[in-house]
């Protein structure tokens, strides 16, 4: 969101005590928790007020009308580019929650950006699927503290390995099992979700109907 109107407010500096070495240095030093900026303008510059349109456009990406729960999407970028997935819901961050289903095409419950997706006009009934427990906190790398390696540690291999938690596996099944029964009702739907999308020489996406 664009910052508040008016001039930049004067900085309030908070200090923290930092331990320092050296016998004659007093043991601790007051260090500002946030470093002062290396540059600020010589004259106070008024902050631009956002226009009404700018102010209204803040927030989460608006979901395209063509994307509704159950829509088959074609992923255009990322690890699973070219695959077809089923859309479940839009997460609070604006990203889309999709699933392969995993047993069909190997795509798990995953977040996907709306901008890198083609929405087809085909859809699957997802009323039997309960995706309410999934939010942005469910996804993403947790505990990603990269401690700086020193000395011999540079040569040591990364100890952390991402193990798939049991919770993820059960959640995947909980979502996919009811979804599979609906998918199997439509002939060729499972095969369709398994197949990859690609363009052949004479196809032009702007002239194609999805």
């Amino acid at each position: 969101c664009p910052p508040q109107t008016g001039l930049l407010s004067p900085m309030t500096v908070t200090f923290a005590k930092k331990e320092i070495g050296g016998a004659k240095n007093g043991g601790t030093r007051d260090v500002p928790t946030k470093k002062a900026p290396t540059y600020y303008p010589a004259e106070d510059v008024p902050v631009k007020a956002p226009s009404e349109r700018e102010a209204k456009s803040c927030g989460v990406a608006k979901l395209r009308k063509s994307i509704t729960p159950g829509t088959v999407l074609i992923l255009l970028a990322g690890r699973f580019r070219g695959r077809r997935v089923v859309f479940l819901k839009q997460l609070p961050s604006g990203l889309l929650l999709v699933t392969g289903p995993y047993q069909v095409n190997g795509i798990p419950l995953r977040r996907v950006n709306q901008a890198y997706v083609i929405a087809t006009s085909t859809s699957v009934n997802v009323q039997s699927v309960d995706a309410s427990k999934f939010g942005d906190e469910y996804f993403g790398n947790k505990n990603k503290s990269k401690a700086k390696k020193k000395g011999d540690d540079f040569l040591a291999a990364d100890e952390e390995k991402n193990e798939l938690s049991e919770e993820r596996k059960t959640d995947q099944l909980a979502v996919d099992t009811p979804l599979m029964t609906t998918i199997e009702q439509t002939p060729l739907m499972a095969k369709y979700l398994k197949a990859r999308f690609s363009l052949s020489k004479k196809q032009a996406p702007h002239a194609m109907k999805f």
Partner: protein
Amino acid sequence: PPSIFGVFRPATRLALLSRSMPFKRFVEVGRVALICYGPDTGKLCTIINVVDQSRVLVDGPEGITGVRRQAVNIKRIMLTDYKVDAILNCPEKKLKALFESEDIMGKWKASNWGKKLENRKLRLATNDFERFQVMLARKERSAARKAAMGE
């Protein structure tokens, strides 16, 4: 015009011409044509008058093909095999009745040309899932053909 043959023949221009010319489709009143350029592309129309060397007056009839009465450049139309017994500047109602009695639309849809255009339209309208189904169907057909050839 004086007959160029020594024997009496019906002195219609076309009867004379058909003997000496390879052309079968003429720009004439009543000729059904396909519009291939402009907002009415892909629609049938009937020539009901000739404006000059490059333009003809055309009518759908509007009630059947959706083409309104208008002047159309000859270069924008393609003549078909069908001809209707329309009089000069035939009124649209009369033209419509002629079209229905001759079942021009039925003949057109059954013709190879008409079928080709219809298929092209259908192919453009397929969505992603339908394209996938068509792909599978073509594979099946190809496999069936190969099996038949093998026998």
